[in-house]
Structure formats: structure tokens, C-alpha cells
């Protein structure tokens, strides 16, 4: 796995620091201050989720978690523990590069200003400053909840947000278990925005984990 990552990433101009286990990872992360961390959840010496939590205690560096299919619960744990995104093995190079780009952009946005005020994917346009949503030339009217949901996804465009994160931000900490609130609002949002709500292009479901607004 590391060989594949090294080959594909160095050829795209990234510099790689490799750690064989969690202990080494912590040491290297403190000494080299990497810009993105790729973390395989199956570590030989420690729980990957635990390591995520540990890194988050002192660092805001984006963490992208790599894990096998069928371990949705692990991904959710890692994301809730502070990981920024995840990739399901096996994955292709282009997918990996896209995620790294998203992570880097968000990291810069956090460092800089409040981020971009306008999010545009195809003909979906979300104006976070004006609170307007347009599909093509048509302005779409959203309920406050729907807007808050969409805005949250737009701020983290390209990144997966877990049910818990979404519920907590939009509904408040008392509702983190009510995933069906979220699912129903999401379905309504798709009906209002997507051309084919049953084959969504923008509002993507990461089943068992959360939702993601497609990257531009």
C-alpha cells in the first residue's frame, strides 16, 4: 500500500514521510509538520481512531482515513474523532488526489478568511453571503433548516460530514440520534435541487457514514 502511495504521490509532486506504526507516526508528525496525514485505520500497534484523537489534541492538520469497505462504524468513529475525510480501499489515484486537494483547500480556508462565499457546482450556485440558492437561473426557496443543512455541506464542500456532525450543527446537540430528521430533510433538499432526485449528482449519500456535497 505504501509503495503504491509513494509511487503515485511523488509523481504528482508530493513529498512523502512514511511511518510504519502509530508511535513513529506521532514522532514524525511533530518533527516534520506535514500538510496532510493519510492514516490507515488498521495499525499494527494502536487503534487508528485513537491515534486520530491523539493527533487532534495538538494539530489541525487534515487527516484522511483509509479503511476497508464494510467498516462504516470505524469511519464514523474516525470522522467524529476529528478526521477530515475518508477513502474506502481499494481506491484509484485520481480519487486520492481529489480528496487531498479538498483537504488542503479547507485547511487553507481555515487559516485564512471564513472561506469562499460562493460555491458553484455545475449549475448549482450557493451564495453563502446572500443566502441565495440558484439552480441555473432559477432561484430555489429553501426552509431555514434546509438552508442551514445545505450551507453546512457547502462550507465543507467535497468533504464528508457525519450524521452526528450535521445533526449537531443544524438541530443542536439534543438531536444527534435522530438521523431520520436528517434523511427526510436531505430527501426534500434533493427534490428541490436535483434534476433526478433518485440519481443525485450533487448531494451524495455516504451510506452509513453521512453526506457530502460533490466537489466542483
Amino acid at each position, binding site marked *: 500500500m505504501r509503495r503504491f502511495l509513494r509511487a503515485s504521490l511523488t509523481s504528482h509532486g508530493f513529498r512523502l514521510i512514511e511511518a510504519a506504526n502509530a508511535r513513529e507516526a506521532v514522532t514524525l508528525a511533530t518533527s516534520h509538520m506535514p500538510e496532510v496525514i493519510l492514516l490507515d485505520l488498521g495499525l499494527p500497534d494502536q487503534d487508528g481512531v485513537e491515534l486520530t484523537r491523539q493527533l487532534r489534541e495538538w494539530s489541525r492538520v487534515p487527516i484522511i482515513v483509509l479503511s476497508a469497505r464494510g467498516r462504516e462504524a470505524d469511519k464514523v468513529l474516525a470522522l467524529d474523532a476529528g478526521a477530515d475525510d475518508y477513502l474506502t480501499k481499494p481506491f484509484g489515484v485520481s480519487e486520492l488526489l481529489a480528496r487531498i486537494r479538498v483537504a488542503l483547500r479547507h485547511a487553507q480556508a481555515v487559516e485564512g478568511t471564513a472561506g469562499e462565499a460562493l460555491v458553484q457546482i455545475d449549475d448549482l450556485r450557493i451564495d453563502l453571503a446572500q443566502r441565495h440558492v440558484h439552480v441555473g437561473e432559477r432561484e430555489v426557496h429553501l426552509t431555514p433548516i434546509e438552508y442551514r443543512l445545505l450551507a453546512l455541506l457547502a462550507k465543507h464542500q467535497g468533504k464528508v460530514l457525519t450524521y452526528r456532525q450535521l445533526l449537531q450543527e443544524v438541530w443542536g446537540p439534543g438531536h444527534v440520534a435522530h438521523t431520520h430528521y436528517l434523511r*427526510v430533510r436531505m430527501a426534500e433538499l434533493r427534490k428541490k435541487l436535483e434534476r433526478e432526485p*433518485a440519481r443525485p449528482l450533487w448531494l451524495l449519500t455516504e*451510506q452509513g457514514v453521512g453526506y457530502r456535497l460533490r466537489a466542483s
Partner: protein
Amino acid sequence: MVEPERPDPDALLRRLQAEERRDARAKLKIFFGFAPGVGKTYRMLQVARELKAQGRDVLVGVVETHGRKETAALLEGLEVLPRRQIEYRGHTLHEFDLDAALARRPALILLDELAHTNPEGSRHGKRFRDVLELLDAGIDVFATVNVQHIESLNDVIAQITHVRVRETVPDALLERADEIELVDISPEQLLQRLEEGKVYLPDQARVAASRFFQRGNLLALRELALRHTAEYVESDVQEYREEHDVSETWPSSERVLVSVSASPASAKLVRAAKRMAAGLRAPWVAAYVETSSRAPLGDRDAQRLEVNLRLAESLGASVIRLSGADVAGPLLAYARRHNATRLIVGKPTHARWRDRLRGSLLDAVVRGSGNIEVHVISGDPEREGEERETASDRQNQPLRSYAFAALLVTVTTALGFAARGLYSAPDLGMLYLVAVAIAAFRFGRGPSLLAAFLSVGAYDFFFVPPYLTMIVHDTRNVLTFVMMFLVSVFLSTLTTRLRRQEQDAIVREERATALHALSRDLGALLDPGQSADVVARHAADSFRAAAFVLTPNLRGELAVIATAPRDLTLGPTDLGVAEWTFAHGRLAGLGTETLPGARVVCGELRVGPVSSGVIALAPQSGQGLRADERSLFEALCRQAAFAFERARLSEQARVSGIRAKTEELRSSLLSTLSHDLRTPLAVVTGAATALRDDADLPVATRRELIDTICEETERQERLIANLLDITRLETGGLSPRREWVPVDELVGAALTRLEQKLSGRKVQVDVAGDFPLLWVDPVLMQQVFINLFENAAKYTPSECVIEVQASSSSDALQVAVADRGPGIPAGEEEHLFEKFVRGSHPQISGVGLGLAICRGIVEAHGGIITAENRAGGGALFRVRLPLPEETPPDLDAKDD
């Protein structure tokens, strides 16, 4: 030339088996004395201490020191089992704790007083039965016993000492002993110890004891004890000879047969037979002959007979029951058939005229005995007075019959009086004969005798001159009286016998019918639960009892699986009885020797070495089973056991059938996997090596090879994912984590996942506006749709539209995935969902797991998935889920 005798191979085999058995089984050592006070307990403790010193695990079960200091001193340093306290009639008894001993499992346990009778409520009535159970459990036992407690010597000793000992130990137990040590002192010494107060005697026994402890008695007892021990020693020698091939052994062709009846005197016959058989080293048989000419036994007699037969059994006889018209016939026939050489019968105790009248058993036996030696032994004189009691004397003839008989005579007299002018007196006498005959026929012996008596009186009074007096002048009339009386006796005897035979036949018929009905109802039942129900019902009917069928569960503990009437429970005591029966394979409980205080009697269900359970009966009468009921019960147990065994075997056959099928499946899986897993790997390896080794490949070819690698690895990934899914489904490690999910999200997410495969294909989703949220595991259910869409994409041309319809009915939610492709080959609709089954499209790759996974997931949600061909062509897959029991919590109104 004399050939050296070669050892008989059978004898060799016997020896090996005997040695094996002796090594394996627990050892019993008996310390044998001729009277209390000879020092048996002391000696036993000495030996035990020596063994303890050698490191044996010795436990004192029960040892009575009776306050003797020397004995108590020996107990020091030995582990003593705490006694069990039993409340009995206001006293607290301290008894041996069998269960604690079994739980403690020492290598050797000491038990004083082998002949001790346990109080009511103990597991066994006698301590020697405790000993047998300990031995069965593999624990060596040391025990003490005095000569007067030996069953077969009981009579002899009663004659010598005039004290009858009630607590006896069967001889078989002594024969079971691996070692007998005689503890002997001279009678003088014993008497001296008695004077010194070193012999313990309970107060109430002092008077009897003074009679017992006389020099003459003690000498006789000592002789008996010595002789008895010598006999066992001799039998040891005998065994040794046989084992070690010393020829010139005893001819063992002797066989003793003893006729046992319900008479108390029979006990003495049994003991005599035992002594004779022991003396001859011959096997012996106790036979009871049930005769149809005599009335069936009353309860008390049946009990006595049981006691006698049990005694014989405990003395080592095999017991058989014969039946026939008289006693002599079947007895002799059995004796001949089984080569009995000696036949023991009792001396008649009744008056001689009865023999003249009915024929004498003894006479018949002696006459028919041929070359069988007949031994006649007198009964016990002190009990001779007890009359034989028959069932018919008490119950079968209510007072009504007697009243009817009297009425009959009155009517006859009235008729005779009316016809007096027409006929002479003797003719009228005939009329009475008819009355007597009718009485005999209708009401049996007692009433017919009454009728005869009344007839004679009435005839004399009314029809014989001088009339209206009881005086008889004519001697010819006396003859008439006598004849009348005799006829009535003959007739009544005859009809009574006929009736009895008839009743016998009815009882047998009933028994046969009961068993037949049981076997019919069990018939081809192969389900143990149903069989148990049938067995319980029949047992309850046949014995007028509550019946329980118990079988061992997986942990080997007995549990009630059927009762009749239904839903009864078994108390812990009764369950204990059942467990005992299950462990020991013998009848136990109410009315038997083991745990007689229980409410139930238990029989084991055994076929050969396989024990499948226990039947427990709680008779409504609260009484134990009679001898005939017992044999019926045993027959019933046997039949039930066969039914259970049959069920077990068929289950075994079924399981091995399944195993064979699994095996078949596994091999098909292996061949599929080895093909489907290797093919993509082979392609990937080929393409990758070509790219690595051949630098001159044109760009287009390189591109093609790389695409191939990507496609094949993706295929491999799908396959492995499917295999993992099916494994998780099959190992049962799958419990849906349900959430409320809108169906469009599931469909949408599935379509997004398949974006590449479905590229350009039209998908038409039709969800009713009021279609409720699904209560499902979203990840799993999404997999169902992924697999269904993938199939549709795989098996239909790319211009084909995939349709999704969601609809709800009153009892289910249905989501259908349909297409207009070639459809499903006829007859394959059901098979499609089995593992490794693929539609008949050899050109399409896959292992045939997709639909099996769908079915597993849908069924885990309590739903069903079906496939069918649509009207107008195409395939239709329906996923039907039960309506959720709850509704999702309402969305918060303040949301919007």
C-alpha cells in the same frame, strides 16, 4: 501319547474380561464378624489408617464409635464426612450423606453397618444400596456386617437364636465383594468384653441381647461365619483355578429351579434354594406360575409375591413368571426346557382332602419330574395360619349378588308352590337345581353356594313332608340335598374359572390393545416432541396417572418435554428419582426399593446401550404399580424407547444428508472460486508483466492493457466483497442496525455507487408520495438495491430501462425492481436465490452470490424477496418488508 490340555479359548477370554472388569470397577471390602463387639469397626479403621498413611484419599462415611475410646482414637486424623440431618417423627436423625460423598469423590470411603435401614425420605431404603451406588460411581468401599444380617442365613440364625433379624443384606452383595476379612475373637473373649461394657447395645435391645449373647449361640454363629467366609474363600480359589487353567473344575451343569408363590413360607424356599445353588455353584431360577384356575391375587398377596420374588432376585436368582392352567405343567415344562436338575417346592400345608378334590401340586410335580430331583421343603410353621386372600373374596361379589341369589330362590319357591299340585317333590327339586345353576352362572361361587343352601332349606321346608318343618323322614331326600349341593359347587367352580379366564383374557387383551394403540399412534412419527406427547398420553391413560416424559438436553440434564395432562411440572424430589433412573437404568420411585417415598415411579427408555430418557408416572391412587402393571409399564417404556431411537436415527440420517449436501456445495464453491478468483489474477499478471517487460509496446496497446488491469481488479474486488458479505450473513453475525430511511435515498445511493456501470442507462423511479420511511439497516438494504441494479445492468441490453416502484399495502411495503430484458429462464425463479447459482448466461461473469446476499439481507429484516417474469417480458424482483410496528418520531415542528 497324551496331548497336553490346551486352555479353552473361551475360558481365556472370560478371564481377560473378568480381570479387566475387576481392575476397572471399584473395590468392595467387607469386614465380617459373627456378632456385635468382635471389633469389625476397629479393624476397618486400622486398615484405613494404614492406607491413608500410604497416601490413599480416605473418607469416613459413617463410623459408629458408640463411645468407645479405642475406636474414637483411631478416627483421629481421618477425614469424616458430616452427617445429614433428617427430621423423622419428631427425632433428628444423623444419617450418611450419600450425595455429599458422591460429590466429594474420595478414593475410598468407610461405611459401618452394611445392613442399616435408612429412614424414610432417603434415596435408598437400605445402606447397602448406597454402597452399590458408591461402587458404581467408582469409589472403593470398606464396610462392616455381621453374619446374622446375611439374607440366606436369616432363617437358620432365627432358629438358633430365636431372634429374627429384620435388617438383612443380600448374598449377592457379599459375592460382589472383592475381599472379605473375617474379624474373629473367641466367644469367651467376646463375653468378657460384654461384661466389661465394651460392647455397645442400645437400651431397648438389652433384653433381646441377653438372649442373643449366650455361649451356645455365639459358638453357632461363629461357626456359621467361619463357614460362610470359607465358602467365599473357596469360590475365590475356584475362580483362581479357572483363571489359571488348573483343570479338574466343578461340573457346572447343575441348575436349581424354585417354585415361588405368594405364601410367606415361600421366602424360606427361596433361601433354601439359594443355599443349595451356592453349594452346587449352580445358577438358580425362581419361578412364579400364574394359574387361570385360581383367582387373581389380592393386593396384599400380590405384595407378598413381590417381596418373595424380590428376595430371590436379591439373592442372585433370575426371576421368571410363567402362566398356565395349573402350577405343575408350566413349571416342569420350564425345568425341562432349561435343563434344571433340581426343583424345589414347598411342603403342602393344607388339609389332605383338598388335594383329593383339586389334585395335588406336589403329586403332579413328582409324577412328571422324570430325572429332575424334586426337593420338598417345609414352610415356616409360625406363619402358616395366614389365609390366602383372593381378590374375588373381597371385591368382585358385592352384597347385591347375594341378595339376587336369595331372591332367585324365593322366586323358584313361589313357582314351585304354584306348581305343587301338578308335579311331585323331586321334580320340583330340579327347579331349584336350575336356580342354583343360574346363580352359579350369574353371580359366582359365594352367591351360588348361598343359593344351594337356601334351596335345600326351602325345598325341605315347603316340599318335603312333613311340610313347613325342617324335619326329613325319607332318606332319599337326603340324597337329593347332597346332589343339589354338589351340583351347585361344581357348577359354580366351573363358571368361576371360566369367568376368571375370561377376565384374564380381557386384561391381556387390554394390555395388548394398549401397546398396539401406542405403536400405531407412534407409527411413523419422527419428531421426538410429538412422540413424547403420544407416549405421555398413552402412559397416562393406561395407568390412570399423570405421565411425564423426560429427555436429556444438550448439557445432559433431564428435562420434561411432554406431560399428560398438559402443563404439569415435576417437583425436585421426583426429578431426582428420574435422574436416578436415568443414571442407573432401573425402575425407581413410588412402590420400588429405591426412593420409595417419591410421588412418581420412573422407568428408563433404553434400546441396547442407548438411553433416550425417562418416563415418570404419578398414579392418581398414590400407590405403586402392581406386578402386572409393572410389566406393562416396562413394555411401554421399551416401545417408547424404540420410537425415540427411531427418531434419533432418522435425525442422524437427515443431518448426514445435510452434511453431504453441504459437502457438495463446498466442492462446487471451491471449483467456482478457484476459477473465478484466478481468472482476473491471471489477466492482471499477464497485462502487468507485459507492461513491465516490453518497453516497445505501442501507446494504444499499453492503454488497453492498463484498462484491462483496472477492470479485472475491480471485478476481483466485487467478488471478494460478495464473499465476505455472504460469509457474514451465513455465520449469523448479521443483525440489522435499523434506522428510519426514505426509500429514495437507498435507491439513489445505490445508483450513485453504480454510476459507471449504469452510464447512460435510463432508470425510472416511481415512489408513491405517501410511501413511509423504511425501518431498515440502510447500509445492508442499499446493498440489496446495488445487487439488483447490477444484475439488471448485467443481464439486460444497455438500452433497457430499469424501473423501480415502491408501493405499500395493508400488511407490507414493497419495492420492486423490474426490467424489460430477456427475463428469467422458466423454472429458475426460486433457484436464483441459492448460492452459486447464476442465470443461464455462460458469457456473463460472476459467481452467483448477489441474489443469495439479497435474500439473506431481506430475510434478516423479516421480509421476503421473490423473482418472476413480467407480463409482456422482462424480469421483476420484489422486496417485501413487513410494516414496521412503530412509526418514526414526528419531525420537530419548529424545524421549519
